[in-house]
């Protein structure tokens, strides 16, 4: 095991730095926007490391994509895909799913 801080703790440290020091000092609209984007990116990385989602493997995804491209769509694909995409969104943007409730 590497020494502390762990990867999660490092992400937290950079998140705190950006939100308490960089963001309040950002006067330029563009700079502020990019800082918010950077914070969002760190949030995604943090949630991914914290997540215990089991998702489809790369091989399964590649096979599914190839099969659908070939026009072979089966019952259950829609549900499978919706679950798969929802799992991705719980990491990338959990708030987005609430917009469908």
């Amino acid at each position: 095991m590497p020494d502390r801080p762990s990867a999660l703790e490092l992400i937290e440290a950079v998140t705190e730095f950006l939100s308490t020091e960089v963001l309040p000092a950002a006067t330029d609209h563009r700079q502020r926007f990019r800082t918010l984007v950077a914070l969002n990116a760190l949030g995604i990385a943090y949630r991914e490391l914290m997540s215990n989602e089991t998702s489809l493997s790369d091989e399964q995804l590649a096979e599914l994509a190839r099969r659908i491209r070939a026009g072979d769509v089966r019952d259950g694909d829609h549900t499978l895909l919706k679950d798969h995409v929802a799992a991705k969104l719980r990491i990338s943007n959990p708030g987005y799913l609430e917009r469908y409730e």
Partner: protein
Amino acid sequence: MVETPGWAGELEARLGRRVESMHLVPGGASKEAWAVEAGGDRLMVRRALGGVIHEATLPLEDEFRVLEAAVEAGVKVPRPIAYLGELGGREAFAMELVDGETIGRRIVRDPPPGLETQLADELAKIHAIPPQRLPFLRSADVVERFERELGSVGEPHPALEYGLWWLREHRPAPLPEVVSHGDFRLGNIVVSDRGLEYVLDWEFAHLSDPREDVAWPIVRAWRFGVDDRRLGGVGEVAPYLERYEELTGRSIAEADLDWWEVLGNVKWGVGCLTQCRRHLTGQDRSVEYAVLGRMAAEMEYELLDLIERA
């Protein structure tokens, strides 16, 4: 940001007037934008950047000609001033620099009244531009285009594949092609308290079924968080379609837009992935491009939801 590029002298010569000041406006990906004061006028100079230009974007000379055709057709656009040829080895043109709000998130907070029908007014005028006026504009099969672009990403996205499959299975009968803007949505229009002032960003102009443009501002991503106002987060679709029909004679039912709305989500989902590759390949390192790779899932979820309800 104050910097004077090496080609400032060339710019003065082409414009035939003294440049008092110029500064780079941040944000362009394949093109840069300079706010210029010259001979007492405020200009915007758009200039090409290096790197791979998106296959669907127009060269600046053609974009300038589209802007001229739009002015002739009475579309609200910044006044095109001059095509400048190459400045410092890259082509550029000058247009009027305009003021107003372009940021979608701010516009949806308090949209000016009448914006729905004003959007239809401009779109109707754009769609009335005679195609022979712009012979360089191309048309393409949109489904095939996004299949190809998705294939080039090099990462499996079965949900987008599913969207493309559904589009192939449910193709509507085509309408005759018109000159289309190609990126007509909030974010690319200038708005003031009075309403819609200008239509910007003509680099994606092409020939297409008119419904491609009509449906694009309806795509959820362009509602900027105000999901219940289906038209761009600013209003209802019905008055927009009614005005469009009044002006063009084309009757489009709201349900006719479903296919195009799914297409729009495929388009922006694939767009997120390809823009992310600009970062990943090192072509344009940027945290903004990087996170787009993770945003594509939003369009995937939306298209699955739309297909479920269709």
